[in-house]
């Protein structure tokens, strides 16, 4: 055995992407690559704001606000605390609607992916429900849940449950056969198979589904809040327009919606850094 130990010394050279090697030249180079990532998109936005500003001042529009008016308008709302309340209301609805959708979509998706009969029975129905726009559900939502918080939550649920379910189902159905065979070879129980093979194999797909789901949920909450209710960013847009053509607030709300959407996606993407799903994003 001692002779063989020498041979293993050679193996050390096989290590290709160890962490040390990947990050050695990081600090300075990282700063510059970070810079090239941030600067160009920022420039585009600055340019767009400049054009907007110039066009509005030149055209002397009585209604369309300048960027400065948008900022001051938004600042008013920040100071009297209403902006915070609207954001909170929208996020809460998204949180609950998306959470419920997640709880339904993941188990159902796993089941449909694993059991052929369940897939054949339910998939046609879901494929038919899926392309119906959430907006089309609004009358029924109002009929069933009235104009309280429940309606938008229902609409968010409806809109985000299908993408997550479809993604999960597809994930299970495309698990590489060799992993299932290996599990069968080692004779593990169904529970171990599910917990140690199926779930982790599908996890990257579930995360993709969650990203789509969160995006759609955020899209829909604003639309749903435009219908009725007294809070939320969608309500803020409609209310600002109705209450004296406050287009500065309309645009401020739109920008805030965009920024929050970006942050929500970024937060979901953090899941991609989980150690157990990293295999999917490297190489």
């Amino acid at each position, binding site marked *: *055995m001692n002779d*063989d130990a020498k*041979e*293993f010394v*050679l*193996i050390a050279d*096989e*290590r*290709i*992407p*160890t*962490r040390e090697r990947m990050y050695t030249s990081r600090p300075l180079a990282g700063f510059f690559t970070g810079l090239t990532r941030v600067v160009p998109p920022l420039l585009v936005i600055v340019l767009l704001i400049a054009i907007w500003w110039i066009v509005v001042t030149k055209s002397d529009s009585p209604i369309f606000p300048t960027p400065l008016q948008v900022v001051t308008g938004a600042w008013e709302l920040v100071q009297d605390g209403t902006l915070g309340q609207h954001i909170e209301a929208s996020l809460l609805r998204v949180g609950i609607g998306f959470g419920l959708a997640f709880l339904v979509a993941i188990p159902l998706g796993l089941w449909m992916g694993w059991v052929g009969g369940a897939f054949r029975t339910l998939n046609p129905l879901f494929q038919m429900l899926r392309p119906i726009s959430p907006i089309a559900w609004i009358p029924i939502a109002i009929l069933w849940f009235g104009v309280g918080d429940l309606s938008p939550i229902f609409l968010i649920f409806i809109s985000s449950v299908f993408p997550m379910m479809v993604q999960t189902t597809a994930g299970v159905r495309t698990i590489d056969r*060799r*992993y299932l*065979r*290996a*599990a*069968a*070879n*080692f*004779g*593990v129980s169904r529970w*171990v198979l599910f917990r*140690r*093979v199926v779930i*982790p*194999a599908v*996890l990257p797909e579930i995360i993709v589904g969650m990203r789509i789901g969160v995006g759609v949920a955020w899209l829909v909450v604003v639309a749903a809040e435009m219908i009725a209710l007294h809070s939320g960013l969608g309500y803020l847009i409609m209310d600002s327009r109705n209450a004296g053509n406050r287009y500065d607030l309309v645009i401020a709300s739109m920008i805030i919606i965009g920024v929050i959407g970006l942050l929500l996606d970024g937060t979901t993407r953090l899941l991609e850094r989980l*150690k*157990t*799903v*990293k*295999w*999917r994003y*490297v*190489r």
Partner: protein
Amino acid sequence: MSDRKSDKKIVVDGVTKSFGALPVIGGVSFDVRDGEFVAIVGPSGCGKSTLLNVIAGFERPDRGAVKIDGVKHVGPSPKGIVISQHGSVFPWLTVQQNLMFGLNGASLAHKAALADRYTDMVGLKGFEAAYPHELSGGMLKRVELARALVVKPEILYMDEPFSALDALMSLRMQKELRRILGEERHTVLLITHDVEEAIYLADRVLVLSPRPATIQTTLHVNLPHPRKLSSPEAQSLREAILKELGL
């Protein structure tokens, strides 16, 4: 060839297999003794892998039967672990978790200790917590080998195990495998198209015919380990096998 027992570990008896109208295996019979290393070589597409799948229990034969320890077996089991060309190390588990995957019963600490022992045996000490994507192809093969060995299988089914590796690494792994088989006794069934690999490793080489596969010739490799492929005996065996393969 340290084998004194006469008991047959694997008995393949008149196995045939077709996929639709395409006959893949056309009646194959052979025995493998306990502790014996048998290599099966054949032209590509001749049904080697299908034969292994049938023997390992992943496919059912159309006719004939496979018996392990005298018992007709119906499905895969940890008694015989398959190591395939593309590997099946779980990418979402660390090296240690991969090795512990097939272990059941014993306490967690015991399992971890056993896993670490085999990690060490295949030369991966220090990589217990690494994820597969952090390892090279050769190291992944070692993980796969260790994961198979740790459950103490009586049989190893190897389906072109090293053919996805570069030539140098392939040779290194062959040597490594031979060393491990010196430490632990296993019955091995190796499918390969690499004639030299077969001669270097096996006690007996079965040459398959083109599809539908039948056993064309059996050759015994009566050379002591470690073998030198440049030796005249090995060379003449190589010539004989290549001739059987029509080269």
